[in-house]
C-alpha cells in the first residue's frame, strides 16, 4: 500500500526523485536478519520486561520532574527567594492617618474655615478682632473707606460722565 501523500503546493518538485531511486525502491531491501530473528525478538523483549516491574504513575512522573531542566530553575528561584527574605532590609511601615468620610465632609462644609480665611487676610482685621469689637464701616478689604453716594455723584459731575455709567455703578 502506498502511503505517500500528494501534498499540493509549489514545493512539489521536491518529489521528483531520480529514476534510479524510483527503480531501487521496487527491489528487495539490502538489509536482512538472521533466520527466525523476529520470532524470538518478542520473547527476548518479554523476558527483559518481566524482569523490570511496570512502573507506576509516580515511577514515570518523578524521573521526568527530576530532570535538571525542571529542577534547576525551581531551585534557583527558591534560593533567590530565600536570599531576598534574609538579605533585603525590612521596610519601616509608616501609618498615614486617613480621615473618615464624614470627617472630610464636615471639614469641607464647616463655615468657620471660611470666616478664618477672610480674617487672616490682613493684620488690621486681626488687630480689630483682638483689640476691640468689630466695626465693618471702618474696615474694608482694600484698607480704604468706601466712597459715599454723594462723593460718587460729585466725581461724575466733575468728570462729565454719562448718566448710564452712574446706573451701572
Amino acid at each position, binding site marked *: 500500500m502506498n502511503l505517500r501523500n500528494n501534498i499540493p503546493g509549489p514545493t512539489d518538485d521536491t518529489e521528483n526523485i531520480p529514476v534510479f531511486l524510483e527503480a531501487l525502491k521496487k527491489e528487495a*531491501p539490502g538489509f536482512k536478519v538472521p533466520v527466525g530473528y523476529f520470532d524470538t525478538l*518478542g520473547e527476548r523483549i518479554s523476558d527483559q520486561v518481566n524482569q523490570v516491574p511496570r512502573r507506576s504513575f509516580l515511577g514515570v512522573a518523578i524521573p521526568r520532574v527530576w530532570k535538571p531542566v525542571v529542577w534547576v530553575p525551581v531551585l534557583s528561584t527558591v534560593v533567590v527567594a530565600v536570599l531576598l527574605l534574609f538579605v533585603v532590609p525590612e521596610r519601616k511601615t509608616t501609618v498615614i492617618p486617613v480621615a473618615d468620610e464624614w470627617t472630610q465632609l464636615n471639614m469641607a462644609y464647616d463655615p468657620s474655615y471660611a470666616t478664618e480665611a477672610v480674617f487672616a487676610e490682613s493684620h488690621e482685621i486681626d488687630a480689630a478682632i483682638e483689640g476691640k469689637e468689630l466695626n465693618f464701616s471702618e474696615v474694608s478689604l482694600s484698607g480704604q473707606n468706601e466712597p459715599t453716594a454723594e462723593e460718587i455723584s460729585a466725581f461724575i459731575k466733575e468728570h462729565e460722565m454719562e448718566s448710564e455709567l452712574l446706573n451701572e455703578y
Partner: protein
Amino acid sequence: MPEYTDIELIEMYRDANRSHYAFNLLVKKYREKIYFFVRRMVIDHDDADDVVQNIFIKVWNNLGSFREDSKLFTWLYRIAVNESLSFLKSKQLRSYLSLTSPEAMMIKSLHDDNYFDGTEIQRRLTEAIIKLPKKQQLVFNMRYYDELSYEEMSEILTTSVGALKASYHFAVKKIEESVTAN
C-alpha cells in the same frame, strides 16, 4: 490471531491482567517496521537489535502515560528516532577515541556485515545515506523507505512540513551526486 487496533491495544494494556498480552501483540505489530527503521540508521544488525530492545522496553515503561492526542505509531516512531540518535551519539563519542569518523566506521560495518545482501547500487545508496547529516538521513529514510506523509514526519520530528520538504530535497540531491560520482 486477531488484528487489534492501536486504541484496543492501549485499552488492553491498561487492564493489568492483560497488559503483557497486549504488549506482545504490540511488539508483533510494529517490530519489523521499527527494526528496519533503526537498522537503516545504525547499519549494524547487532546494534539495531540492542536499540530495538531498548525502544520496546521504553514503550513498556511509558505506555501507561501515553496520551492519545497523538497516534501510537507516531509515538513509537518518536521513541525510535530518539533512541537511534542517542545510540549514534554514543558511537560518535567512541569514534573520537578510535580516531575514526563514525561514518567511516559505519561504512566499514556495512562492508563487513553478513546480513547485507544488497546489490552494488544498493550498497552505494546506503553509503550515500550514511554520509548525510543526521536530520536529512532521518527525513530521507522516513519518506523514501517508510513512505510516511510529511504531516506524520512533522509530528514525529516536531519540524515544519516546509523544512522537511527542503531537507528531503537536499538529501535526494546529495545522494544523487554521491551515487553518480562513484
